């Protein structure tokens, strides 16, 4: 499971906005250069039409498509596909250093549930992650939708799924000092929106999870419930507030952080496949 460290470094420590994508029709891995050219032409044409993405600065948008061969769960998964948009300022006469503008990548980690039921000409890469201006995401998204007849949908994360993530990730073993486990709640039905942030020492959180989890490597809904109930009870004891009545909107651990609007940041390369596997599962349930 060794990944190319340079490419993987690109994926870490960035806030990615999540989407689910239906299978791509007629996608050919060998034609990546052609696709990059076509996408570049599409973006240039849209800018000509006046749907400018950046006002004022004259930018040439360069498109690069590449495969991330190591980002997959098993041989049954398609390798991940990375799309990079960079700008080259037309005016500069000096060395043309491309400035990265936007990244987007498609992936599937243990997504057999979707791909095994899908016929030949379709390619399954159900999870899409983007970082950069929303306008570029819209441009790239609409080109892919037109070219491969697929559909992108924002992937939101429910409080139920967020609690799975925090339980799983707080329980992970880390060699160096880890950052705090943080849960952010939003309190409903108030005149002024109120957010409650609950930070837990990572060792305490891991110790709690270790007493709850019965079989290493397996997690059940009951175990996640017990873990969360302990956290809620502890908070109630001190502050007399029932966090279980509030909405869990964001969780943060040393491994990764996730927001209910479908925004994720992965911090640790060792756990990248695990996080992607969970997100792939969420994307597939949204598609089906």
């Amino acid at each position: 499971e060794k990944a190319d460290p340079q490419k993987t470094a690109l994926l870490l420590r960035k806030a990615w906005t999540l989407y689910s994508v239906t299978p791509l029709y007629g996608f050919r891995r060998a034609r990546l250069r052609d696709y990059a050219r076509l996408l570049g032409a599409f973006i240039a044409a849209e800018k000509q039409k006046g749907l400018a993405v950046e006002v004022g600065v004259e930018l040439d948008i360069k498109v690069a498509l590449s495969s991330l061969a190591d980002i997959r769960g098993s041989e049954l998964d398609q390798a991940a596909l990375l799309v990079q948009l960079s700008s080259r300022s037309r005016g500069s006469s000096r060395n043309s250093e491309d400035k990265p503008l936007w990244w987007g990548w498609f992936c599937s980690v243990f997504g057999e549930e979707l791909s095994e039921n899908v016929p030949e000409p379709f390619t399954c890469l159900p999870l899409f992650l983007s970082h950069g201006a929303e306008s570029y995401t819209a441009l790239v998204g609409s080109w892919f939708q037109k070219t491969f007849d697929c559909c992108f949908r924002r992937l939101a994360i429910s409080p139920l799924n967020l609690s799975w993530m925090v339980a799983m990730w707080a329980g992970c073993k880390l060699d160096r000092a880890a950052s705090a486990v943080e849960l952010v709640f939003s309190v409903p039905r108030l005149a002024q929106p109120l957010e409650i942030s609950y930070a837990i020492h990572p060792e305490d959180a891991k110790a709690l999870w270790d007493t709850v989890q019965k079989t290493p490597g397996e997690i059940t809904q009951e175990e996640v419930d017990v873990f969360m109930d302990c956290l809620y009870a502890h908070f109630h004891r001190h502050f007399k507030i029932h966090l279980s009545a509030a909405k869990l909107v964001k969780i943060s651990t040393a491994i990764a952080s996730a927001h209910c609007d479908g925004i994720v940041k992965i911090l640790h390369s060792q756990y990248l496949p695990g996080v992607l596997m969970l997100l792939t599962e969420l994307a597939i349930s949204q598609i089906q």
Partner: protein
Amino acid sequence: HLATSLPLPSERDHLRPRIDLVVFMIDIKSKYSLKNVETSLAYVDASFFLGKVCFLVTGVGRVNACSIETNAVCKLGETYCSPVLFCELELEGVRTATAQRLVQILRICAGHIPGVSALSFVSLMRKSDDD
């Protein structure tokens, strides 16, 4: 009559009319509401569970705001032999339809529908769930 939890305050016992139906409301966005219902169930006399109790799960329209697993609620319904209704109060049509269903169940529980008792009605609902 609305209450945020059970048991009901005993001071008003002598003024209270006969209770024909207890509807436990669970908000799918609030884990706390499920816990509250689970605690309150302990204060309900066993005879009510012969068709005079039902669970109403609200907020089901918002899939992305789920804090409770649907299975957990269905299991609750099975454990207490009572039907579970799902609805979305924010949609007027569903709100009205749900209210009508509850009123109909209440009529049966109060004995206003000749030939149908609360117990027979609940066994009918259970049979159709199993199918």
